[in-house]
């Protein structure tokens, strides 16, 4: 392989190197100085993130099994940013005594899932796609079960891995049908012979099911809430943002490159499921008390909105989906960051516990509010722009009914986001969360989130960039 090809694959290679390095450091470092691993990993990952942003040639490797172009690179970069934020946020959590044994494992697993996602995004072949998908799922199940002292953590782990196995089984069955009817698993080749017969449609639906599981689209979402609730908060954040984002990315790539022929069919599927997803997600979110669970349902409904960008089948839709994921990363990680910080400091995770938070921790409350507003799509924060573009994309193809349903759903979602705001700002508590100071990591992560939430919206250049880059997918 020429060096140029290394550059093309640099995301994956760098990550692999990082994972190995962490392992090596783990082996050779003194047991009492495991904390250093955190710093090392964060710095290392920051470097990778920055390096990933460098311009890169496009190209195909391994006979078309690995495809990279500006658009996919951008997706990887977006994920990198998200993971960096998650790493920063998890620093405090990792420093807790019960986790000190497994710091480097945490990083290795996280990075390997990210490698999986990157391969998934870069795949040009369903085998690569499948392996990437599994690589992105299996270690997360272990991470979900990471908290050995919490029963629900193990429960989350088993739920995740079993449902994911079922889902990948169905997905594989679908893939097998697609393979049987087209004779290839290369994206490009499938696209040329795909005609949309019943069997192919069946294959597509089963494939869709598998993706829907990852994106947690109704009715394939039921695992989401339990796994989110049971997992450690940073894993939940990772699942809700990175894992979902990667799935969205690859899904959009597959839809546009493999199945453009049956666009009418998948638009219908998405039409129905997006309505279901938004509505069901919102309806469940209303009643949640546990913030993680709450954010789980919120993220389900967010997935419904994201589908709006798919349905147009247009370039604006693609761009707005990618853009929205970016925005969503900042917003959701902002929210999770606050939840995590508070959970670390006080162990409280319920909405009631947040009563009167503003009076003790005003900054955290403000960040939380900003993040929630961004999730709800309230201007002038980025979420507003993201949602607007998604809706615009759907409206461009005339899906006005869908847009109206979606905007009405945003009202419901606003309701429950406001419930949190209400708890933090309006209500008083006899037993508020005490004032505490976060560490540098958390602050930095939250600062990045806030900057992202505010800047991503106004900086039109960013969206323009995404729009231009997404053209090549």
């Amino acid at each position, binding site marked *: 392989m020429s060096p140029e090809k290394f550059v093309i694959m640099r995301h994956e290679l760098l990550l692999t190197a990082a994972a190995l390095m962490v392992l090596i450091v783990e082996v050779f470092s003194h047991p009492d100085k495991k904390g250093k691993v955190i710093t090392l990993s964060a710095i290392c990952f920051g470097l990778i993130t920055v390096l990933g942003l460098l311009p890169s040639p496009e190209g195909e490797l391994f*006979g078309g099994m690995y495809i990279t172009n500006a658009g996919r690179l951008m997706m990887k970069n977006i994920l990198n940013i998200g993971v960096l934020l998650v790493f920063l946020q998890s620093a405090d959590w990792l420093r807790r005594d019960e986790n000190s044994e497994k710091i480097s494992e945490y990083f290795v697993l996280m990075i390997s899932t990210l490698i*999986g996602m990157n391969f998934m995004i870069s795949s040009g072949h369903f*085998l690569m796609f499948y*392996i990437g998908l599994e690589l992105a799922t299996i270690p997360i199940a272990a991470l979900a079960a990471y908290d050995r002292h919490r029963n629900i953590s193990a429960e989350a782990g088993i739920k995740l891995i079993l449902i994911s196995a079922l889902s990948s089984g169905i997905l594989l069955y679908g893939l097998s049908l697609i393979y049987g009817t087209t004779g290839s698993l290369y994206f490009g080749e499938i696209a040329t012979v795909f005609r949309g017969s019943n069997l192919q449609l069946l294959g597509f639906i089963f494939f869709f099911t598998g993706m829907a599981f990852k994106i947690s689209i109704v009715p394939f979402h039921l695992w989401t809430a339990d796994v989110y609730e049971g997992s450690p908060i940073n894993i939940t954040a990772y699942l809700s943002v990175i894992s979902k984002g990667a799935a969205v990315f690859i899904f959009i790539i597959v839809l546009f490159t493999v199945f453009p022929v049956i666009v009418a069919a998948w638009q219908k599927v998405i039409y129905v499921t997006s309505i279901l997803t938004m509505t069901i997600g919102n309806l469940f979110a209303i009643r949640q008390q546990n913030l993680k669970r709450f954010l789980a349902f919120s993220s389900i409904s967010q997935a419904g909105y994201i589908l709006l960008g798919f349905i147009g089948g247009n370039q604006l839709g693609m761009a707005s989906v990618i853009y929205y994921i970016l925005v969503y990363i900042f917003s959701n990680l902002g929210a999770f960051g606050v939840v995590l910080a508070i959970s670390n400091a006080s162990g409280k995770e319920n909405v009631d516990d947040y009563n009167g938070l503003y009076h003790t921790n005003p900054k955290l409350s403000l960040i939380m509010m900003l993040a929630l507003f961004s999730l709800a799509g309230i201007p002038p924060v980025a979420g507003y722009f993201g949602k607007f573009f998604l809706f615009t994309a759907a409206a461009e193809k005339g899906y006005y009914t869908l847009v109206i349903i979606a905007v009405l759903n945003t009202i419901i979602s606003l309701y429950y986001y406001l419930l949190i705001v209400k708890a933090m700002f309006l209500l008083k508590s006899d037993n508020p969360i005490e004032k505490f100071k976060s560490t540098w990591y958390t602050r930095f992560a939250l600062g990045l989130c806030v900057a992202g939430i505010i800047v991503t919206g106004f900086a039109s250049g960013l969206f323009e960039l995404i729009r231009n880059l997404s053209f090549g997918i």
Partner: protein
Amino acid sequence: MTSNQLMFILFSAMIVVFSILTVTTRRILRAAAFLLMVLLSTSGLYFMLNYQFMAAVQLTLYAGGIVVLIIFSILLTSHISQKFEPVELKKSIFSALAAVAGAILCILTILDYSFSATTVAAQEVNMKLIGKSLLSVDYDGYVLPFEVISILLLAAMIAAIVVAKKGGPAKTKTPTLN
């Protein structure tokens, strides 16, 4: 009826029967045994399909690896003689309905489709070719998945360790959460 067909009927009958037994038997170790039978029959099918390599892999990896793993875990977690309570009727009926519906749907759709065999000459599958393909970086080469799966296996190993590792210091301390 040719011997092929006979063999096929034999294997498929075994597969179907043992599959159903696997998911219905009330003794867990038997279930594992039935699963093993299914996997073995499957490898027989692979022989029939003239994929000896795959049949071997199936035997070693699946039958030899996974099933053994499963049996170990059964031994770890259950009494061998333990008999499950029967499944709730409602649950089993509904699940069966779903499964049957899905099967009918898929079968009808499959039967509806007329597969057209390729006209390109078949490729002799031998170990050399498999090895070459597995290490090829060109079209139809599988070195990249091969590399990635190694990462996956490594990650899975670490994951399994992380999960199953008997608790460190945290175990002795009272958990602060929950």
